């Protein structure tokens, strides 16, 4: 193995930017680390080069543990995105710098330099300075400079990021050729899929510091395991249905689940199909391929030999669309297809079938439970059990003691409590320190789908959670709840849409009924057209999520008051409210609707964070 990373972790503050990354690269492999900006991909590269030190984990290069060594002793070749060519040295001096440091004789240096400049296609540029070279040429000098002292491994940090697309294509090809010829093990970091597909022997997808999947480009594209990789790499449609006796069911359509795919009977199952796997035909296809339904063309774009078609199909029973994103207020299925340009398509009554498809691994939902003080621990744990049973979720119970000494006693108490409340399967984590910070950190890691917090947890915890939460937070009050009737409080606007979508998704999983509440100022005359439209689309969106929703309009002095009145009067079990941005509560504090509902409600309250898309 040329490069071997073992559970490499780097924290910035408390937040892991690289999280337990393990990776093995055989000699001569070209590995591309693909991720969005801020995913931690460059940090991995810098950890390997020794430019930063990991908090835990090891880096082994060619069998030598270099974790504790400075960058000078690692022998890696590094190409930076900004090239970092030494401006006061000419090309020759730049390329020879590593050899000069290693005290190689001048004749030998010159020979090596000529060879390298020839390799990267810059022969005769020896005497030029950085200011006299183009971006592409600088990049090639950087490559020659990194290769001069025959590095163990070559590390490239978005090397083509600053170049225009024509040069980029050309340089990619020449890089691949050079890498093949020298057989140097290479890791290239990029956010560009096309680049990854073209260069990589293997691709690794990194997100929030975690290496989600690695594999050959064609395997990752055709058979991703996780939803993130499925939607990140390439286009496609993802539908969530139900696993039922070895098959994934989407309405009347039933697709067999391969035995190696992780799934659970009765639980959610997701299918992915790529645009080129979709078959379109004017007549109903014969029974040889699965049929999604009959729909109409909503969008058609010509792209050379192919045309891209987006179709809208009627909603399928017990099915929720995951990708592509369905606009708020629409309930049908959206399916993307690529078909030959010469295929004539009518715009109505197009039958949509599947040539092939892929069932994704189904991770269980994960809950993070923080029970708070002894007074609410009962209701909190009972609600958490109800949730985890209905969602088929796995749970982590978090306890935070004030000091190190009481960690053990708290652990014993929580252990008893969780067994007593039927949460024996939940994982117990007990720490000492500040509970708000622990919760903030854990939910930021992206491991959890839902937070359950005991409601009289101090205001400081709630404030912190509302400030930073990226997943929905269920705040459990004194009252036990059956979670059967959900009250979603909504107003027109982007965050109002998120509230409906997130609440609806949970209602779909819990199979609860939904009441959509809109509060108007008392004595106001009717609803504005915007609000009317919003509520209509909200009901349609719920239908698309397989959930029945009724609309309730209530006049009240303030929004919070109206919500609280309806909650008591309407016999609901669960209130869903949105949050209005990290700063809102500190500016308005008392005025803030979310805070006032939280303060006044007896029922559990689900707080929906702002969606960042």
């Amino acid at each position, binding site marked *: 193995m040329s490069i071997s990373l073992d559970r490499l972790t780097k924290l910035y503050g408390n937040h892991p930017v690289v999280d337990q990354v393990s990776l093995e690269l055989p000699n001569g492999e070209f590995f591309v680390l693909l991720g969005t900006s801020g995913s931690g991909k460059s940090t991995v590269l810098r950890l390997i*080069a020794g430019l930063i030190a990991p908090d835990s984990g090891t880096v082994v290069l060619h069998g030598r543990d270099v974790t504790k060594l400075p960058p000078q002793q690692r022998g890696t070749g*590094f190409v930076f995105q900004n090239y*970092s060519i*030494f401006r006061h040295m000419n090309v020759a001096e730049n390329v020879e710098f590593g050899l000069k440091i290693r005290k190689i004789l001048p004749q030998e240096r010159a020979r090596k330099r000529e060879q390298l400049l020839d390799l990267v296609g810059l022969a005769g540029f020896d005497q030029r300075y950085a200011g006299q070279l183009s971006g592409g040429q600088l990049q090639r000098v950087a490559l020659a400079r990194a290769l001069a002292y025959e590095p163990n491994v070559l590390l490239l940090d978005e090397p083509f990021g600053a170049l225009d697309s024509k040069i980029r294509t050309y340089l990619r090809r020449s890089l691949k050729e050079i890498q093949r010829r020298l057989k140097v093990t290479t890791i290239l970091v990029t956010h560009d899929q096309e680049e990854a597909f073209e260069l990589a022997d293997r691709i690794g997808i990194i997100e929030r510091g975690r290496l989600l999947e690695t594999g050959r480009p064609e395997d990752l594209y055709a058979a991703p395991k996780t939803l993130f990789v499925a939607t990140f790499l390439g286009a496609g449609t993802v539908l969530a249905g139900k696993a039922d006796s070895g098959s994934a069911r989407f309405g009347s359509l039933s697709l067999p689940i391969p035995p190696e795919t992780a799934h659970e009977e009765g639980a959610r199952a997701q299918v992915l199909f790529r645009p080129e796997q979709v078959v379109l035909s004017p007549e109903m296809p014969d029974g040889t391929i699965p049929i999604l339904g009959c729909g109409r063309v909503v969008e058609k774009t010509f792209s050379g030999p192919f045309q891209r078609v987006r179709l809208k199909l009627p909603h399928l029973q017990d099915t929720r669309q995951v990708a592509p994103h369905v606009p708020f207020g629409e309930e049908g299925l959206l399916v993307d297809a690529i078909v030959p340009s010469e295929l004539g398509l009518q715009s109505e009554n197009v039958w949509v079938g599947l040539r092939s498809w892929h069932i994704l691994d189904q991770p269980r939902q994960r809950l993070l439970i923080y029970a708070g003080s002894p007074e609410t621990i009962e209701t909190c744990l009972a609600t958490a059990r109800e949730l985890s049973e209905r969602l088929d979720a796995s749970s982590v119970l978090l306890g935070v003691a004030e000091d190190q000494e009481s960690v053990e006693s708290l652990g014993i108490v929580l252990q008893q409590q969780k067994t007593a409340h039927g949460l024996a399967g939940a994982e117990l984590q007990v720490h000492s320190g500040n509970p708000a910070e622990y919760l903030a950190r854990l939910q930021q890691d992206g491991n959890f789908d839902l937070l359950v917090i005991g409601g009289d947890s101090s205001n400081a915890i709630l404030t912190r959670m509302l400030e930073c939460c990226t997943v929905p937070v269920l705040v459990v009050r004194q009252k036990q709840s059956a979670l059967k009737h959900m009250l979603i409080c909504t107003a027109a606007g982007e965050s109002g849409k998120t509230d409906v979508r997130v609440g609806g998704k949970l209602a779909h999983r819990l199979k609860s009924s939904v009441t959509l509440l809109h509060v108007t100022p008392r004595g106001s005359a009717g609803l504005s057209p915007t609000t009317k439209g919003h509520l209509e689309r909200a009901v349609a969106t719920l239908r698309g999520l397989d959930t029945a929703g009724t609309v309730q309009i209530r006049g009240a002095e303030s929004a919070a008051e109206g919500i609280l009145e309806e909650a008591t009067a309407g016999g609901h079990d669960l209130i869903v409210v949105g949050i209005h941005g990290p700063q809102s509560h500190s500016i308005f504090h008392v005025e803030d609707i979310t805070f006032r509902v939280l303060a006044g409600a007896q029922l559990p309250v689900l707080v929906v964070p702002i969606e960042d898309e």
Partner: protein
Amino acid sequence: MTNLPTVGSLAHSKPFVPVSLLVLVLMPLLLLPLAAVFVFAFRSGPGAFLKALLTPEAQFAFRFSLLIAFATAAINAVIGTFAAYVLSKYRFPGDRSLGILVNLPIAIPTVVIGTSLLLLWGPIGLLGRMLVPLGLQPMFTPLGVLLAHLVVTFPYMLGAVKPLLDELETTYEEAAYTIGASRWQTFMHVILPALRGGLFTGALLTFAHSLGEFGATVLVSGNLRLRTQTAPLYIFAQFEAGNIETANAVAATLALLSFVLFFLLLRYTGAGAPSEPARSR
């Protein structure tokens, strides 16, 4: 350097009135005083001028001033670059305050700096008191003058080098590290050459300011003839003694020297930064 007329410039209107107005304002402010120095210096002919310059006191004052200026420039080049490096590359609590502190000598009157040095190192000063029993006395010696000049001119080197270091991306250093260069090698081969322009202008500025320093010097030097008397102090002393022509001869020479330095500086900074040899070739 070409002055292309830009949008909104008045290149096409007649420049006569505003230009002559400017010259009229500048005459009594800048040009006439300078001219007066030269007129007075040569009033008794070149012989008297030379004679005034060749007195042992004048000779000493010049040599001492040049020596102090050289030493100040050299020492502050090292300390100033070091300070710039630390302030630019490291983040630590109080880094901003320290950055303001080291630039303070520009804002403080030089006489105040002289006074504070006396109060620290003088025979009854906070630290100076402890040196007396050892037979050491930095004030009223050449060392005291050097100390004052180092303090007064400290910000110039820093100001010339730090912006260059700030602009130098961290990856520049990191590239050298991954290639195999040690911290010291990186500093010598990669960072220092990138700072050349700043080092030169910083040193020149420091030198020029040291050459003309008066306020702090007059206090810490004791103005001792043939021992701690710099050229500006000598001019002042001659004026006080009524030897106007001697004072003017030295003043004219000092002014000339400063002109030369100033033009050197202008040429150097104006002719494109030498840190980018690509352009100058």
